[in-house]
């Protein structure tokens, strides 16, 4: 039925997060039948209200856009609770929700790794260690940070790759939306693509990042209102948590409901990864690459009103992230318990169908409308996060620095609106492209997921080693990307090294890309001149930006707003969450 995530039953989401590396389609299947939801006028009313509000936010935010800083970074003026919830929401796209539920139906409780070890430490690191550099240096984007620390080559390479990836991922999000909407509501694919694309276009062109962020916060609450009832009813149906564990132990074995069972080195498990590749590949390299250098995320924190709020953005996001795993894992596990053959040959249901299946089985009209609204909102927010980061990078990093330089600010606001429209049209194009070349698209996405990792290595080496030279950034980026790709597409896909699953291969590719990027950076640095010390202030660990001396805003010294406390609290909480799943 719905088959936008997997190419074969052993595949799983590739990135630590939604990145949608996993959306592929088998159009030969009949999408229309089977999962159609019994929606009625009430559900459509709820959906229509949401669309009206989304547009209303766009129009209302329009009057706050005066400068490029307003359009691309909300004037660096939003409070931390808004940027924090937008931070989590930009990640909580529908591809993440459906994909992680699918992951749970397939691999069981291993899903928790994508949250507790594969997100929390990286989010805390971003808030506590990296944000002072990002926010304090006043850069407007992640590539701009590379421009300051390294040189134009590193800047341009990262900006162009990011812009491509953002459009591609936005398009895949749109396409995934179209096939889900077709299956659930029966709308033709092109209608869903054009309608969703038009709404995203309208509200971002009007209100810029402020309207993207406001809508993300709204989406966060709607998706919770959809997933909480679904999880509660799912648990009730299988006799509570104990009933769920008993059923799954009987059908899937004991390891299915544990986090670490069967992950010893050399022992086989369905994930195809052991504890070491989970901790290093997922927990360190992939996760830090995604959370700390992916501009679609970092942009939310850069729009905060001061350094304290910027630091708290990923930390506030970390707390919901710890618990959201239950809302996606429980439906996945319940689906696996109710339909033990889900996703296997001979079953009507794919792993991806876990949440839609439970929606159709359990939710009466009313809550069903909320759930459909939540899913559509999550798809649109996922696309909007990519579009709003794309227009920023394209305008500030490519257009204003290399193509048309030195014009007045108003010109770049107009250009930002224009490029938003072009970007949305391009993603509508990639969405249609995805429908005919789904495999190519999935490979391209895997490729871009590798790009985050070298980006992270370049950041981390540049930040902690002041000797890293200006030229080393570009070569480290290139070497890391190429190595990860060669490992994945040549060594793994051609069977030269034996790794049981795509997922395991991803972890290994990420580690290889990280090591290669670091080694090349060291070698290039040793043979090229270092950057003058004076130009590194505020960019290298142990130094401060000239403008960093700002006094804390009133109230920011309250104990519950202290970044260190919030950050370590999240890490400890995530570690504690592992306890019941470890024995």
């Amino acid at each position: 039925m719905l088959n936008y995530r997997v190419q074969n039953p052993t595949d799983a989401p590739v990135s630590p997060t939604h990145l949608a590396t996993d959306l592929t389609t088998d159009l030969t299947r009949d999408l229309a039948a089977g999962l159609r939801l019994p929606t009625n006028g009430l559900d459509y009313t709820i959906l229509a209200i949401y669309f009206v509000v989304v547009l209303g936010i766009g129009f209302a935010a329009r009057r706050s856009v005066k400068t490029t800083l307003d359009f691309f970074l909300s004037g660096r003026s939003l409070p931390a609770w808004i940027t924090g919830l937008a931070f989590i929401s930009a990640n909580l796209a529908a591809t993440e929700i459906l994909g992680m539920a699918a992951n749970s139906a397939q691999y069981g409780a291993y899903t928790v790794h994508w949250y507790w070890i594969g997100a929390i430490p990286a989010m805390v690191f971003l808030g506590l260690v990296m944000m002072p550099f990002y926010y304090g240096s006043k850069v407007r984007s992640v590539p701009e940070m590379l421009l300051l620390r390294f040189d134009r080559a590193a800047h341009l390479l990262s900006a162009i790759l990011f812009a491509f990836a953002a459009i591609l991922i936005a398009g895949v999000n749109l396409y995934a939306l179209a096939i889900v909407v077709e299956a659930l509501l029966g709308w033709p694919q092109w209608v869903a693509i054009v309608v969703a694309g038009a709404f995203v276009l309208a509200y971002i062109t009007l209100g810029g990042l402020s309207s993207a962020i406001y809508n993300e916060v709204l989406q966060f609450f709607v998706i919770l209102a959809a997933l909480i009832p679904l999880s509660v009813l799912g648990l009730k149906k299988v006799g509570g948590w104990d009933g769920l564990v008993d059923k799954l132990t009987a059908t899937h074995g004991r390891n299915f409901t544990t986090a670490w069972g069967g992950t010893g080195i050399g022992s086989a498990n369905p994930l195809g990864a052991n504890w070491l590749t989970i901790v290093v590949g997922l927990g360190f390299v992939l996760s830090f690459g995604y959370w700390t250098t992916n501009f679609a995320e970092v942009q939310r924190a850069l729009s905060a009103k001061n350094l304290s709020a910027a630091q708290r953005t990923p930390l506030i996001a970390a707390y919901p992230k710890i618990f959201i795993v239950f809302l996606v894992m429980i439906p996945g596990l319940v689906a696996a318990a109710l339909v033990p053959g889900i996703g296997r040959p001979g079953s009507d249901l794919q792993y991806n169908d876990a949440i839609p299946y439970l929606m159709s089985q359990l939710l009466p009209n009313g809550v069903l409308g909320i759930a459909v609204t939540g899913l559509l909102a999550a798809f649109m927010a996922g696309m909007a996060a990519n579009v709003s980061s794309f227009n920023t990078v394209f305008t500030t990093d490519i257009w204003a620095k290399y193509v048309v330089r030195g014009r007045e600010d108003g010109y770049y606001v107009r250009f930002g609106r224009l490029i938003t429209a072009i970007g949305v049209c391009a993603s509508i194009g990639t969405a249609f492209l995805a429908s005919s070349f789904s495999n190519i698209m999935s490979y391209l996405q895997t490729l871009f997921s590798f790009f985050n990792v070298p980006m992270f290595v370049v950041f981390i080496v540049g930040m902690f080693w002041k000797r890293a030279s200006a030229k080393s950034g570009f070569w480290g980026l290139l070497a890391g990307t190429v190595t990860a790709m060669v490992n994945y597409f040549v060594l793994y896909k051609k069977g030269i090294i034996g790794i049981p699953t795509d997922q395991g291969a991803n972890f290994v590719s990420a580690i290889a890309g990280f090591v290669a990027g670091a080694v090349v950076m060291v070698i290039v640095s040793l043979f090229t001149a270092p950057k003058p010390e004076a130009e590194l202030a505020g960019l290298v660990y142990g130094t401060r930006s000239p403008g960093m001396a700002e006094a804390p805003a009133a109230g920011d010294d309250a104990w519950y707003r202290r970044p260190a406390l919030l950050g370590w609290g999240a890490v400890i909480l995530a570690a504690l969450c592992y306890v019941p799943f470890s024995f």
Partner: protein
Amino acid sequence: MTDDSGHSGFHYSEQDVQREVTELEGKSATAARIFDLRRIIGGLFVLYGIIVTITGITDSQAEIDKAQGININLWTGIGMLLLGVFFVVWLWLRPTPPPVPPVEGEKEAA
């Protein structure tokens, strides 16, 4: 985004970014003009809460049976209503701070 002609672009330093962004922050209108999101969340969730709660009150036994014997519309509706009320009350207790005149240096404290 005004790039001073003194810089060729081959050398774009942190000072350039600081100066540009600080200048833009002075002209920025978001802090002064953006509406308070709490009003929207509060309004939408109160409305959704009322709609879904009423649906729950009028649900037939068939709907309740589908949802494992729980009147899920009622409970979800009440939950959404409470969330909406929370945001409205928060807004009422801590109203939107009045826009600060965009004087350089003062803005950070806003």
